[in-house]
């Protein structure tokens, strides 16, 4: 029976490539049976949450060189079992315990240095160097975010604290962060996510001001929470829940519940609404992907001019490999949002940054100083202002 039908089907489908509305099928006696009983389609409406405005925002790149040699880093991760490995087990500094790659743990590692935190960091790092795998590779990511309020006053926030105590001390001093922390000019630290290169330099900030208010995204693991305590933190710890977290008019963060490599969960990105300009976002790595990031902003937030104005930080396109390669292109997906100012670095690929420039995107060039590698990036010590 099926066979005699085959030809009829083929002829029909060939003959009707265009033209027939699905409705006309009924008149032919063709129906489609659906076994589905339930399916809900909640309408997603733009929420336009208003978190106020500010006059401008300035971002100073304290350090974007998270590590200096990617081959070494990937070798460590691969050698420890791959991308799903727990970062605290790799035996990277400062949690090295001398047992070698993939045999570490937070408890054994911190035991060697805990008594030195947060004030005797040089000694602590020296111990870590001896006990850890590839300590020379550690750098870190940190940025200074300076909000200019509508009334002209300014307020500084620290985003992330890097990795290596040694490198972060140096970078903090270069940009005067140590003094701003000590004087209380910076009183709030925002941690984007629990990754080693954004968070493990935590004691360096504590050294200058243990009383900082610290905002971390929901999803930190036990080790990370313990590290905050072990680093001598005495200030307020805020665990921001999934979704929007408002800090002050025009400044808010958004917590994405995304799993990240090396057993990390959740990333907190910063949104700033600059008056008469639009939305500026400052990201650590954007592990949730630029597509999700921009979609979320679009669906949830109210911002001036309805314009995505600027972006700073690392840009991941998506945590997935698309099955259709033609869509897997950061240059195309970023273009859709029409950013007016792009400052990229860190985990954004260098060629990608160059492609942005060739495609005519408003990429702000850097100076390639302090071990940053290209002028297509906003490198260590570079500054970008929005508004």
């Amino acid at each position, binding site marked *: 029976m*099926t066979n005699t*039908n*085959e030809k*009829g*089907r083929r*002829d*029909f*489908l060939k*003959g*009707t490539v265009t033209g*027939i509305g*699905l409705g006309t*099928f*009924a008149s*032919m*006696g*063709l*129906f*489609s*049976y*659906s076994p*589905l009983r*339930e*399916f*809900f*389609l*909640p*309408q997603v409406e733009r929420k336009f949450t208003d978190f106020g405005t500010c006059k401008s925002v300035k971002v100073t790149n304290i350090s974007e060189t998270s590590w200096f040699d*990617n081959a070494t880093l*990937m*070798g460590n991760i*691969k050698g420890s079992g*791959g*991308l*799903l490995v727990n970062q605290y087990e790799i035996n990277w500094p400062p949690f090295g315990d001398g047992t070698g790659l993939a045999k570490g743990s937070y408890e054994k590692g911190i035991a060697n240095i805990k008594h030195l935190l947060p004030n005797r960091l040089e000694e602590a790092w020296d111990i870590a160097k001896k006990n850890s795998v590839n300590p020379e590779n550690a750098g870190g990511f940190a940025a200074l975010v300076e909000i200019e309020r509508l009334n002209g006053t300014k307020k500084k926030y620290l985003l992330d604290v890097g990795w290596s105590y040694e490198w972060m001390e140096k970078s903090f001093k270069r940009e005067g962060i140590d003094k701003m922390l000590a004087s209380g000019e910076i009183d709030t630290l925002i941690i984007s996510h629990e990754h080693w290169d954004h968070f493990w330099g935590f004691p360096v900030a504590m050294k200058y001001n243990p009383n900082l208010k610290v905002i971390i995204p*929901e999803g930190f693991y036990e080790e990370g929470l313990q590290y905050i305590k072990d680093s001598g933190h005495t200030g307020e710890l805020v665990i921001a829940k999934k979704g929007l977290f408002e800090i002050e008019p025009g400044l808010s963060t958004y917590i994405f*519940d995304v*799993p990240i490599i090396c*057993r990390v*969960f*959740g990333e907190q990105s910063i949104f700033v609404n600059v008056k008469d300009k639009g939305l500026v976002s400052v990201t650590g790595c954007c592990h949730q992907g630029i*597509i999700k990031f921009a*979609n979320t902003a679009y669906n949830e937030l109210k911002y001036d001019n309805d314009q995505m104005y600027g972006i700073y930080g690392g840009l991941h396109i998506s*945590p*997935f*490999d*698309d*099955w*259709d*390669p*033609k*869509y897997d292109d*950061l240059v195309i997906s970023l273009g859709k949002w029409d950013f007016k100012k792009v400052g990229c670095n860190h985990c954004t*690929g*260098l*060629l990608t940054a160059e*492609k942005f420039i060739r495609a005519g995107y408003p990429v702000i060039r850097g100076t*390639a100083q302090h071990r940053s*590698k*290209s002028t297509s990036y906003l490198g260590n010590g570079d500054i970008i202002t929005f508004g």
Partner: protein
Amino acid sequence: MNINDFYPAKIDASSKAFNSIMRSLLIKASYDGILKKITDYKGMYLCEKNQECWTLKFENFKGIFGLVLSNVQDKSDGYLGKFNLYYFPSNDDKYLSKCSLFEEYIATQENFIEKVRSFSSYPELTKNFYISCIKLFIDKTKNNLHVNYEVQNREKTYTKDGVLDLHNITNEKFILKPSSIDKNFPAFRVMLQFFNFFNTLLTRINGDKPDSFEIYKTKSEVVSYSQDGSFEKQESSDVFNLFLSLGYGKFDFRHFETNLKTKKRLKNTNILHCFLESSSWKTNKVDFEKYNKTFSNNSLKPKLILVTGFLGSGKTKFLQNYIEYENSKNRFVGIIQNEIGKIGLDGQLLNYDYSLVEIDEGCVCCSLAGQLKAGVATLMKNSQPDTILVETTGVANPFNLLSELNELNNVVEFDSIVSVIDGVNAIELWDKYAIFKDQVRAADVILLNKIDLMSNEEIKKVEHLLVSNNQCANIIKTINCDINPTSIANSARLIKSSTSHISTMFTEETPLERTHIQDGISSKKIDIFEPIDKDIFKSYLEAIPKDIFRIKGIIKFKNFDNQFVIQFVNGKYEFIEMEKTKGKDNFLVYIGCNLDKYDLL
């Protein structure tokens, strides 16, 4: 199972929570290289338009799997999320004609695949193409997870009155005759692909196999529809429902499954039970390496891609693009490099995010299996790359390498030969160099590069030349070798088996031993101690004889602070200002024919 391991956030009976849980699981999957290989996973897209939905592709299926949340319930001791699984057949899919005529019509429409990417926005897609319902139950202590698949062995519908062709109504021509089968879709068989993938993912996250696995079976019905659109169900002996139930954790899930008593439980010795269990998700201690051969044809070894291309074709650019894309996906690339007249310059031109092994002296095509093997071993020891790219010298003959590559079979998985072709000079090179011909003939993938510098006619002409000399290769046109590695992987897969086939055909036709020495190509390095005037150097390059087809090096120009990288290829040249690094020696490497004849700088 500790749910906090992969989802430390709060869970409730909201669609937000369950979408987020599924998203987290799938992201974990995309980080898991071993899982991907053993389950033939080929990529995923998350659509956030309206209702979040996911589409996935697997190697052995031409169509796309779709997954979307359909319901959430608060049970007294846990939360239940139901997901619908779909299969959207592609145009050349063997499962296409198993669908209903209605579905087949939709699937052959022009924008079908485009729509599939956000299928939850299209009712005609969510109402049709359904294959299975997947229930995810998580208990309130977050220590137990249960997954249940409900599927029919086949979805079968009949048309009672037949379907008439409207175009041909006077002849009463039936497209489907009365009482004939409209749909006969093997839902269970297709769904098994996702079943194995998802369970293996859970097993790998859990670190152990599920604590329980049960199969229930009930009778099911075939459906027939009449001309008036009414549906009639009829019990049938050849369709049945299956409920496949896996429990991670020691929790008795039975009470949330309704009507279990009316279902017949299959014994553990049942053949279907045994068959399903012989899969990668049923692994005791998660040592997937050894299951490799049993469950998948894909190996866990790094894949090896041989990159050939004449000098200056854009190989380095290709490598850079490849490395950067893979890095952005948290994968790592190792490079084995060998250039005639090796100076280590390319190491400087390339980005930094890869592991490089340079093979000494001579060139890849002349010696080599041993060196290649050592190179692979070094790479594996240092950084365990996912892919190894072997960059052969610009004038290497890939056919010479094929037999050597066989010897590497136990350490790498040979993937493909990629030849980068400089479109602008292709015709000329074809006439002049036999090795260029071999590079075209040996390729699985040809990147026809520099099309931005060619007219449409020139492109057509070169394409014709390439196609007529290598009908197997996938020819991809590029500018700056800007290409997504996935496109290469996808095309290489289709013709992988033919690589050896072409090579044997080719062997019969030409002797294999041709190397660059016979073509009279050689290289020469010249050290340059003094800064040079930029304009004078330009006019020097513009007057260079055709025999010299490649110059590269580093030069200091008068009145410039930084040094410049010089690239000269077949009459075209560029200077790239170097960034402030430690001073390098200034030099030029010449590559070409009869170099001795010329007075080099």
